[in-house]
């Protein structure tokens, strides 16, 4: 019916003078946008199927392609935007839930961009990290009430810790939501750099077991691939309660993506839907959470820190206090800009709160309750660069999870169509012909380059503040100032306005 007639979101422009009809674009596009027309003897494109992943643009040997937003516009209306209208059209045609991928793209305030960092001038001289030692090492886990040493000078009764050379970890992305080559790239980079990688809830692929010491294994409501060996194969266990992109709802990996390997790793039959219930049905209270934390500690002989990951939501400070009292060693807080392989659009764009505010509130509350040393705080939900990390640490985080940025370093171009399983960059897909586009060795190197660059930048920023160990910045909000923020926002963030 004509009411269902769609207009292309993107327009493909092909420079006929440059195009040599080599058909690279045709081979590269899993959405089958480019076709060589035998009758016309030239390349043509079906713009309607283009998702603007930039694959063809980047691989065209003569740079003949440009992708643009469709300039055709609805009548200007700040309320009924083209996007709103098109969403309604889609739902009127299908009766379905709007689905999307990656993080919240809406124009809401990004607090990182309203926070500025300090630097030393005249007094307290700055330090040049190229010539002087600079310490970024971070330990995650419960810190002891008091420190005692045994005869050999080792710390006595130290609860299990995760040792990070740089306070960065790769956030949970399951094998299933991303390809094995993407997993391998991240795991290898984590091993080489002394960081951590997180399996997500999709089980632990056997090719990744070699990176066990650098792996956090996740336990989510579907318990996919979770068994004793899995729990003991990693360096820490994370209970996933929530995810910033979709707080309060479960996951749903469609059967088409459950091929032989995913089936083996998740330990579910091939082709069956992998449904993660919204809650863990063994956790209906803080007491129940404590029970699962200790069941996991028992099953791993108290050798691994247990992390609890939640989405940043309204009462996050009170929730985090509960989690700390329940015996978690690490609390991971995922803000409302966090990425996802698939989430209902309305939830991704409207549920949850910014991680910056959540972090400040949680750190404050844990200090008030004298629980802060019992847990480490990890934040995530769109950490985009090294400055975001430094700001997070100064607000009170011990480390950050980085996921979307790591995928961008692997080739992701943020088309937000991860849920279709047709990622042309070999990341959010299980199709062998697409997966092999991402070489895990090249991928690992690119992730390593990114993190190495960031760690240099973090050291530069620290040096500029006259600080030579990240530990001295942790929770040091005097190093932060706000701009364009209300008094209430400054109060929650616990920082002064610039100029003060």
């Amino acid at each position, binding site marked *: 019916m004509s009411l269902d007639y769609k207009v292309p979101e993107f327009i493909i422009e092909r420079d006929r003078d440059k195009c040599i009809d080599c058909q690279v674009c045709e081979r590269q596009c899993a959405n089958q946008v480019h076709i060589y027309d035998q009758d016309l003897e030239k390349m043509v494109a079906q713009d309607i199927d283009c998702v603007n992943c930039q694959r063809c643009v980047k691989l065209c040997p003569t740079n003949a392609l440009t992708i643009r937003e469709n300039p055709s516009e609805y009548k200007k209306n700040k309320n009924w935007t083209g996007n709103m209208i098109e969403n309604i059209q889609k739902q009127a045609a299908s009766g379905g839930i709007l689905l999307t991928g990656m993080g919240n793209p809406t124009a809401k305030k990004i607090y990182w961009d309203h926070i500025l960092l300090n630097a030393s001038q005249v007094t307290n001289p700055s330090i040049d990290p190229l010539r002087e030692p600079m310490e970024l090492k971070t330990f995650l886990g419960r810190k002891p009430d008091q420190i005692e040493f045994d005869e050999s000078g080792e710390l006595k009764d130290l609860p299990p810790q995760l040792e990070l050379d740089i306070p960065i970890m790769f956030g949970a992305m399951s094998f299933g939501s991303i390809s094995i080559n993407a997993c391998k790239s991240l795991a290898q980079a984590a091993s080489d750099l002394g960081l951590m990688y997180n399996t997500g809830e999709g089980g632990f692929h056997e090719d990744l077991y070699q990176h066990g010491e650098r792996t956090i294994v996740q336990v989510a409501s579907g318990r996919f691939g979770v068994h004793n060996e899995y729990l003991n194969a990693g360096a820490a266990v994370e209970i996933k309660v929530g995810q910033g992109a979709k707080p309060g709802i479960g996951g749903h990996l469609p*059967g088409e993506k459950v091929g032989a390997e995913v089936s083996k790793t998740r330990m579910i039959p091939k082709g069956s839907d992998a449904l993660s*219930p919204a809650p863990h049905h063994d956790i209906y209270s803080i007491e129940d959470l404590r029970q699962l934390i200790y069941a996991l500690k028992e099953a791993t002989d108290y050798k691994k820190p247990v992390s609890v990951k939640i989405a940043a939501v309204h009462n996050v400070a009170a929730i985090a206090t509960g989690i700390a009292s329940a015996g978690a060693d690490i609390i991971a807080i995922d803000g409302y800009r966090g990425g996802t392989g698939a989430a209902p659009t309305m939830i991704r764009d409207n549920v949850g709160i910014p991680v910056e505010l959540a972090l400040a509130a949680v750190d404050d509350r844990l200090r008030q309750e004298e629980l802060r040393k019992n847990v480490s705080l990890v934040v995530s939900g769109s950490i985009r660069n090294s400055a975001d990390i430094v700001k997070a640490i100064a607000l009170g985080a011990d480390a950050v999870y980085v996921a979307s940025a790591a995928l961008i370093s692997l080739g992701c171009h943020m088309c937000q169509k991860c849920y279709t399983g047709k990622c042309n960059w070999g990341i959010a897909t299980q199709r062998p012909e697409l997966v092999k586009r991402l070489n895990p060795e090249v991928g690992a190197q690119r992730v390593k380059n990114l993190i190495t660059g960031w760690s240099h930048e973090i050291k530069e920023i620290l040096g500029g503040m006259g600080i030579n160990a990240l530990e001295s910045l942790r929770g040091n909000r005097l190093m932060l100032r706000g701009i364009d923020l209300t008094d209430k926002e400054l109060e929650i963030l616990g920082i002064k306005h610039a100029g003060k």
Partner: protein
Amino acid sequence: MAVIDAQGVYYRELNQRIKELLARGEREITLNNINGQRYIGDGLTEQAKLIINGTPGNDLAAFGNGAELVINGNGQDGIANTMNGGQIIIHGSVGDTLGYSMRGGEVYVKGDVGYRVGIHMKGYQDKQPLIIIGGTAGDFFGEYMAGGRMILLGLDRAEAQDIVGNYVGAGMHGGVIYIRGQVEDYQVGQEVKISGLDEDDRKELKGYLSGYCQEFDYDLEEVLNAEFCKLAPCSARPYGNLYAY
């Protein structure tokens, strides 16, 4: 065979002692005077037997993978949580969330079970978890069930007592539930179809029940000689058409 007197022993110490004995090669341990200690048998992979006299606490045999546990008493909540293998035999009744996300092994309960039993049970290759319950079950029995078998017998129950609560098999997308007796449509989730048993089902059921009846001294023929119904998912993809692309 080793014996531990658990009177007044804190769970952490108790479980450590069990693990130490197993590490030394002990294959059968009797635990006397168990009174609410949690996490007994969690994460055990050994082919060993624990005989538990008393009432063990929550999360018994969570993440278990091979051990055999015999409980001479009642159990509490969260038994066989995410269990991958092994056998648990309970000579009494148990609480809520038995067999959550269980992937392998067997649980026999002589008496009743609470709410949310067998949620998200799943099967994989040769692993088909099995729960058999002699008595009755509460609401949300087999919610989200993705594989394996659950058998609910409702033996020796009071006339007026329902064999099972509501929302049976809500969100079910795999596995089979057999119930000795009738359930009404309103009691089961939308994703479930109720049917009678065919020849193959009866054979399967007999196979599953013979071990159970032997264990608890029931007459197999007598148990089988009743009207059973079978609950199976209408679709392996209950939420396949939920999204607008």
